[in-house]
C-alpha cells in the first residue's frame, strides 16, 4: 500500500492582475490505513488540491509523491497508468457511464484493468454494505442521486486502488447513507490499509476521519 505526500505545492490561476494564488506552499501527507478529511468552503482550492494529488493537474512548484514516485516528473501515459492502478476517484457527478448497467460499470473496470481488481468475496461485502445488490442490473438514469453515488463508490473501490480521492462523496446522500458510506470508507482505510482522502464540506463525515484538515484561502492546516 502506498502513501501520498504533497510537498510545497503552489498553484496559480490566471495571469498578471487577475492572477490568483490558489494553493500556497501546501504540504500534506496521508498514510495507508488513514482516512483524511479536507474541509473547506467553496473556492478554497479543495478541487485543485484533489486534481493535483491525483496527477490530473501539475503544480506550478512543488512535488507529489505516490510512494516513491514523483507524479510531477511522470509522462502523461505513466500518470494514466498510475491512476488506473493505484488511485481511485469518487466524484460528485458523471461518475457512471449512462448506457451501462451498474454491473456493467464493474465489467468496464475489468476490461480496462485486467488484473488485481477487488477479490469477489470482498467486493460482495462492499455491494452489501452499499446496498447496491438490487440495482446491479439498472441503468443510471433509473437510479436516485444516492443510488448513483453509492454505485460510483463501489465502482471506484472495485478497481482496488491504494489511494482513494473523493470529491464530496456524500453530497446527495441522506444521514443514514452518510453513516454507511463514512463507515465503509473508514473500514477500507482501517481494514484494507487504503489511503482515503475526502474533500468535502459535509461535517457529518467528521466522526469517521482519522485526521481533519481545513483548507482556507489556499492554506492547509490541521484541525
Amino acid at each position, binding site marked *: 500500500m502506498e502513501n501520498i505526500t504533497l510537498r510545497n505545492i503552489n498553484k496559480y490561476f490566471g495571469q498578471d492582475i487577475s492572477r490568483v494564488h490558489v494553493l500556497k506552499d501546501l504540504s500534506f501527507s496521508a498514510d495507508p490505513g488513514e482516512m483524511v478529511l479536507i474541509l473547506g468552503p467553496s473556492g478554497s482550492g479543495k*478541487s485543485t488540491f*484533489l486534481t493535483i494529488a491525483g496527477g490530473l493537474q501539475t503544480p506550478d512548484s512543488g512535488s507529489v509523491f505516490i510512494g516513491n514516485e514523483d507524479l510531477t516528473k511522470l509522462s502523461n501515459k505513466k500518470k*494514466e*497508468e498510475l491512476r488506473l492502478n493505484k488511485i481511485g*476517484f469518487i466524484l460528485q457527478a458523471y*461518475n457512471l457511464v449512462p*448506457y451501462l448497467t451498474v454491473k456493467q460499470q464493474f465489467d468496464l473496470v475489468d476490461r*480496462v484493468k485486467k488484473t488485481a481488481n477487488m477479490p469477489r468475496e470482498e467486493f460482495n461485502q462492499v455491494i452489501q454494505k452499499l446496498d447496491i445488490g438490487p440495482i446491479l442490473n439498472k441503468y443510471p438514469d433509473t437510479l436516485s442521486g444516492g443510488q448513483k453515488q453509492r454505485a460510483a463508490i463501489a465502482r*471506484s473501490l472495485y478497481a482496488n486502488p491504494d489511494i482513494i480521492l473523493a470529491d464530496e462523496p456524500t453530497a446527495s446522500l441522506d444521514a443514514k447513507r452518510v453513516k454507511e458510506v463514512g463507515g465503509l470508507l473508514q473500514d477500507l482505510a482501517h481494514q484494507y490499509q487504503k489511503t482515503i482522502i475526502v474533500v468535502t464540506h459535509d461535517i457529518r463525515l467528521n466522526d469517521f476521519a482519522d485526521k481533519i484538515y481545513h483548507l482556507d484561502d489556499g492554506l492547509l492546516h490541521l484541525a
Partner: protein
Amino acid sequence: MFLAFNELKQEKLRYIMIIIMLALLSYLIFILTSLTLGLANENTAAITGWNVKTGVLEKSSDANLRQSLLTADQVKKLTKDSDTAVVAETSVVTKDKGASKISATFVGLNKSQFIAKELQITSGRKAKTSSEIVMDDSFQNKDYKLGQKVSLNDSSKKYKIIGFTHDAKLNIAPIVYGSISTWQNLREIGTNFGGSGIFSKKADFTTSVKNTKAYTLKEIINKLPGYSSQNMTFSFMIGFLMIISLVIVAVFLYIITLQKLPNYAVLRAQGVPSGFLIRATLAQSLILMIFGLIAALILVAITALAMPADVPMTFNLGLTAAVSAAMIIMAIIGALIPVRMIAKVDPVSVIGG
C-alpha cells in the same frame, strides 16, 4: 466494442435513425453505381464483346466511330490480316406491323471476318445474305420474332430476322447486325465507302493508310456520344453522396461525443486510457456504417428483383465491395474529429479546480 455495443443497445432509437440515414445514402450510392455500370455496359457491351484492342478510324473523326467514314479502298488495305474486321455503323429505326418501332444501331459486318464469325447467337443462326439480320435479344421483349421481316428506316426493303444475340448494345441502343451492303443502302452512299472503322485484336495495330488514324479501344469508347459526360455525372453524384455520408457520420458522432465528454473526462481521470475510448468511438462508427450497408444491400437486392428488365442496372459484386469499403473508410474519417476530442478531453474540466 464493449462500450460501443452497449451504447447502441441502450440508445436504440437514436442509433437506428442514424443507421436508417446511412442505409438510405448507401442504397442511393449502390443504385447509382449499378446504373452507371448498367449504362456504361449498354454503351460498350458490343464493342467489348468483339474482343478487340485497337481501332482505325477516319483521321478527322476525332476517335468517334459514328463520325468516321472509310472508303472501300481504305477498308481493303486495312483488313488484310485475319485479326482485323470492318465495322459499319449507323442509326436505324426498326419497324414492322404488330411490333414497336425501336431506335437501334445498325452494325454492318463482313461475314468472312472475325467479328461476324465469332458472334455468339442465342437463338437462330448467323446471317448469310444481305437480306438477313441478327438482332440483340432485347428485341424479343418488344415482339420481334425469328423469321419476321422488318423494315429499317424508310426503306421499302424488308430484312428477315434470322438470329438473336445477347448483349449487343452500342450507345445505349440495341444492335441490328447486317451486311456492309445493307449499311451502304441505309446510308445511301454507294459502294465507294466500305465502313466506319477497322478493329483489330492486336494492341499494336497501326495504320499507314492515308487519312486514317489508329486509336486504342479506350479512346474510341470514351468518344462514344455522351459516354464520358454520363460517367462523369454519375461519378460526381456518387462522390458527393459519399462526402454527405462522411459529414453525417462526423456530425452525429461529434454531437454524441460532445454529450459524453463529461463521462469520458471522469473515465480518463480514473485512468481509462484514451485509446480504449477512441477504439470505442471508431467501433461505434464502423458498427453504424456496417449496419447501414447491410440494410442498404437488402434494399438493393429487393430493388434488383422488382426492377423491370428495361432499366439498365448492372449489379457487380466487386464494385459493391469497393463501394462498401469506400463507405467504411468514410466512417473512419468521419470519426476522426470525435476521436480528437476524446484524445484532448481534460478531466479537470469536469472535476473543477
